[in-house]
């Protein structure tokens, strides 16, 4: 048995990459400032010394070239990890991801097993270009996989699984959790969390809350309050993977509770909650006792000032209010 070590969400990401790079010489990382500087958030600190410049590659500020090179290397059997310094900067690589990586297997039969990862999310007072959640930009693209870990264990296990996956995986790590979230993990021990499987964070019978990423903690807080104050129990699902989506787990829960609240940090219009609601409509309409509700960010860019950003982001009280409304319906 390995010894347990207190590990942060950020360290879990670092450990997953380092362990896979030790285990498999085909794994390498490329991105802006990942080598000499050690990554903008110091995730790859020490990597250059351990793995050398052929496997820890500093690139120009060229996200399309970063992802493009990762695709080509994947075609040659390597296992690239392309880092976006902030997930907001994935925009210049959109063409490469959507038109090249995602469609490669379908068009040519040759897949592109690569990971594109980067810090997403708000709450860090970073303004419109360092705070976004981009999952819905990519949700409509067949051929991609997408994960958004909410726990330290999942941060490690999903990244390990993503690196080993034969298809392109977008890995959204929430920067608000980087150093705030800690968990005891077995040191140096392999953790693999399969893609496409949701996790039940809290068990209950009266309402289903489906969420992912950092919103898990506000949803948990709301659920705990309601359980203590009102006595209703809440089934809280952490999706972990958005593509493939664990529709089965969502449907199983909704058929039991008859009520569904979807919570995510990205804006609502065209957001991922819409897809979940459509799936539930198709698969569990007759079990619903109330309309499906969602709590999301407001339909604007992410604002900078704390007062504005707090207003923009979904808060625990918003979730609790929507949950109570559903329970009373």
């Amino acid at each position, binding site marked *: 048995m390995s010894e347990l070590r207190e590990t942060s969400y950020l360290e879990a990401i670092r450990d997953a990459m380092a362990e896979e790079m030790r285990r498999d010489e085909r794994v*390498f990382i490329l991105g802006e400032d990942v080598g000499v500087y050690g990554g903008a958030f110091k995730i790859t600190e020490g990597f250059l010394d351990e793995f050398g410049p*052929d*496997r820890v*590659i500093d*690139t*120009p500020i*060229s*996200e*399309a*070239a*970063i*992802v*493009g*090179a*990762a*695709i*080509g*290397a*994947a*075609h*040659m*059997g*390597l296992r*690239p990890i392309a880092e976006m310094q902030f997930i907001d900067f994935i925009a*210049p690589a959109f*063409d*490469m991801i959507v*038109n*090249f990586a995602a*469609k*490669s*297997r*379908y*068009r*040519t*039969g*040759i*897949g592109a*097993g690569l990971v594109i990862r980067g810090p997403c999310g708000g709450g860090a007072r970073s303004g419109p270009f360092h705070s976004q959640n981009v999952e819905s930009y990519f949700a409509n693209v*067949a*051929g991609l*996989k997408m994960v958004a870990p909410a726990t330290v264990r999942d941060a490690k296990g999903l990244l390990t699984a993503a690196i080993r*996956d*034969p*298809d392109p995986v977008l890995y959204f790590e929430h920067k608000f959790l980087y150093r705030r979230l800690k968990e005891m993990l077995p040191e140096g021990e392999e953790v693999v969390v399969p893609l*496409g499987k949701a996790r039940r964070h809290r068990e209950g019978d009266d309402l289903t809350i489906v969420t992912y990423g950092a919103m898990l903690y506000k949803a948990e807080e709301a659920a705990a309050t309601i359980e203590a104050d009102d006595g209703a129990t809440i089934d809280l699902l952490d999706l972990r993977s958005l593509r*493939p989506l664990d*529709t089965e787990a969502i*449907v199983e829960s909704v058929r039991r509770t008859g009520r569904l609240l979807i919570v995510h940090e990205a804006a609502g219009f065209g957001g991922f909650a819409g897809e979940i609601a459509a*799936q539930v409509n*198709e*698969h569990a309409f*007759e079990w619903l006792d109330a309309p499906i509700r969602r709590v999301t960010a407001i339909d604007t860019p992410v604002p900078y000032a704390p007062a504005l950003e707090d207003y923009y982001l979904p808060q625990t009280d918003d979730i609790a209010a929507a949950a109570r409304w559903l329970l009373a319906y």
Partner: protein
Amino acid sequence: MRSARATNSGQDTTLSELGSSDLQAIYRFMLLTRGVEERLEVLFKQGHIVGGLYRSLGQEGTAVASARALADGDWLAPSIRDMGALFVRGLDVRDMLRQYTARGTSLCAGKDNTTHFTVPALGLLGPVSPLGTQLCVLNGVALAFKQRGEPRVCMTYQGDGASRTGSSHEGFCLAAALDLPIVTFLEHNHWAFGTASRREAVVDDWLDAAAMYGVPAESVDGNDVRAVYAASRTAVDRAREGGGPTIIVAETYRMLGHAQHDAQKYVAREELDEWRRRDPILRLERVLLDEEHATHVQLEELRAAVSDELDAAVSDVLAEPEPEPIEARTRVYADATLDAPVPWTRGPVPGYERLESGT
């Protein structure tokens, strides 16, 4: 520090490497390219081609002679007008016909058209329609060669139009920064769809547009196969020996419109007449005859053989089946259970039967 502008002088030893049999082979590949495209044009008019048809008339010399400089194990990513390079790499002409006629037997299984296939065994990486992107992806192939210490080289192509994309610029930046073994042809064919290249970039000489990345760059007459081969050979050898990327500007001309639907009304007739005189196939024909690399009879036999080969290929391919409709759902992911799942419903729901039966 490498010179940003190499010159093509002193290449006589390389030039002399193209003997009679090489020149005849290049001639044959050019005939094959033009012949396939002429047959595709007929098939297009007959309604056998469901999508666009993009010809490389006038540009066959650049594609064929450049690819001839590669070795087994090297990789090549064509642009849409580089079909000739694919045949040099060993592609069966039937595969090109299958692509355009959307056969189920095509390399893309009917899911994509034109030169958009990837064939690792032949070292071919397919481009996609958003231009400039294949340079970025081929960089990754070159990166893999470099990481593994393999003496292998990549070659790719982009038109003057594609070279204006951000992807092209980023691709050149990364190739230069990482010193990758990759040779890029910038095919200055004077037209990006319906826009003249002089309106895309404010340069008189497109070498100026290529010389900004700090890697060797040079211009060649793209319709002179010996010049194209010599420049390619120098660049490929340099890349193989660890000398990094090269950009070669090939001066050529797109003799037809962007695609079949484009009647090219925006092009001056005199300009076309001028470039018709520089046709790469006619030019090589004169070299072959004048320098006695081949006789009239030999060339006539070659043309007849190519024509017979293409006739047979066309009739073979037209007899091949279209893809089964259900195939539209397959091969999205490595794990087939994830391919386009059918929605779950309680009993039949109108609109879902087609998905469930897959017909």
